[in-house]
């Protein structure tokens, strides 16, 4: 990973907070699903953004409600689950 954990949290916070009035109040522990802030448009943009800033490729089984429930949860799964090489059968 080319970016530190705190940098990644700050970067994702900035990315999500700039999405709208309701998003501006988001903290790293805000439940993005319960609050209805994460729609499919934001999810896809978020994944693309994470892949760009961190160099990590996100796999199909990682895109689930528990990994994307909050910014803290996203960063946690990114740090915990380094992408094994050669397991990209889901990606097109």
């Amino acid at each position, binding site marked *: 990973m080319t970016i530190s954990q705190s940098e990644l949290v700050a970067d994702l916070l900035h990315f999500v907070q*700039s*999405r709208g009035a309701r998003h501006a109040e988001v903290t790293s522990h805000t439940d993005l699903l319960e609050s209805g802030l994460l729609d499919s448009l934001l999810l*896809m943009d978020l994944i693309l953004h994470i892949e760009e800033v961190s160099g990590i490729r996100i796999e*199909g089984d990682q895109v689930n409600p528990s990994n994307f429930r909050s910014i803290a949860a996203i960063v946690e799964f990114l740090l915990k689950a380094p992408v094994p090489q050669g397991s990209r059968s889901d990606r097109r």
Partner: protein
Amino acid sequence: MDILLLQAEPPMAAPMATTHGKAAFRASMPSVESNLGSAFFEIAHARGYYPAVVTEAGTYSYEWLLHSANCVRRYLCARPGHVGARVALQLSNSPEYLAAFYGALLAECVVVPLPISIEKPHCQKIYELCQPDVLISRGEEFSPSESHAVATLRLCEKPEEEISLPPLRRQNHDLAMLLFTSGSTGMPKGVMLSHRNLLANACSILHELPICADDRTLVVLPFCHAFGNSILQTHILSGATLLLHRSATFPVSIMEALSRLRATSFSAVPEVYRMLLKFGQLEKWSLKDLRYMTVAGGELRYELAAEIERRIAPASFYIMYGQSEATARLACLPPQQMHVRRGSIGKAITGVELAVMDDLNHRLPPGAIGMLSARGENVMLGYWQDPSATADVLSADGWLRTGDIAHQDTDGYFYLNGRANLLVKVQGYRVHPAEIESFVETAFPHVRAVAIPTSRGEETRFVLFVSSESTELVDLAKIRATCQNQLAPHKRPIHVELLDRFPLTSGHKVDRAELARVAANISRTDTSSVAVLSAKTAAEPISANHQIE
């Protein structure tokens, strides 16, 4: 305008399919000579306890739906001058939406469905245009204002006396629905759909797709969208079941819902299929009941369509094409033709004529590129109170100019070649850049704005270019915040860029092609950081003031 809030109580017990259910029932094709309200009434009456809608809260039967629609009808009929009055719906996909929709038709009103995420000024413009008498919403989706009278109607399961079909004076050529969409100038236009339009398109689709009474279709498309509305009408008129999935956010939750709810069919826009292919892990799920999927509302590359087809086999994949002005759908590519006619949107569906025409509305031969035009009983009556915009797209002999540039092969299969205007599709929604531009220019009167669609991965997003029209400084952060706070999500620019002046074409118009090249550079770089830009046109250099926050 008065407000009616609907509240569907959770059903007491899941109604079981009775003797009406399963293979025993077969809906007859509705007559285009009838009225959509009465066609609904007959089906709902015949289906009784059979499930019409399944949500996380439970299963709502056709009887519940009929009873609830009748409650809405009674409320509306008690109002003076209700025949032909506009009834706006601001409801997410829910049992309440269906009750409101058919209740308004049974009360002989005109339904005006609006998206939940609609911007306030845009919504206000629509209200001014069509002057709704009543707005129907739900408590959790409505923020009350003091100027409106609010009534609440609880839709509960209660044994009701036999409901009989009220006498309906509205004829099949009368207006049933106003579907607001982006016109070719970016102003909202109300597509006027008659009972006949809606019934005719439903019949055409029922000819092309194997929809039957025991179908259970998973719905992620909003009913207020032409595509979503056509799924609603075709399935209710078949006596089938709608499985409402509240969140289409996670590809895995769509797959999980398809599997757990034993869905037999699924329809979505290309964005959703691209998401499913990337992150849905399609092969992991057992989709034993799935018979087919359909895509419409935008272009899905052949390779991706073929990949979906391969992964859902033995279920079939139908590629369809349509637009709101034609009620919903116009063409269908049968699954067996997908690999033979790569990239085709298919043939005209039953009851629809499609042709490629020149500027004088003369038919062009196969191979020639021109305006894709459509004729049929599904073609709208026109745009609401806008005869000149109607005349621009609808000829006296009933041909609708779709705005899509296309050609056909010698066997009558059509292929899209582009757009004749600036409209683009984002998540199945038609967006005109002028909607974003006029929004920004209204909020910031000294700013000139140009919105340019650009590709971000496989998706389409907007980059906004702004330039000062006066000596005042441009507050980029404020423009960005205003867009993010007030524009609907699919219209929000991913990047705002300040230019000293816009590049111009030789005709002194803003050179959108040049800006598209600049936008492509921007969207390739990280959009949250400072964009590095050195765009030049052949005619004149443009300088970009890099944004600093």
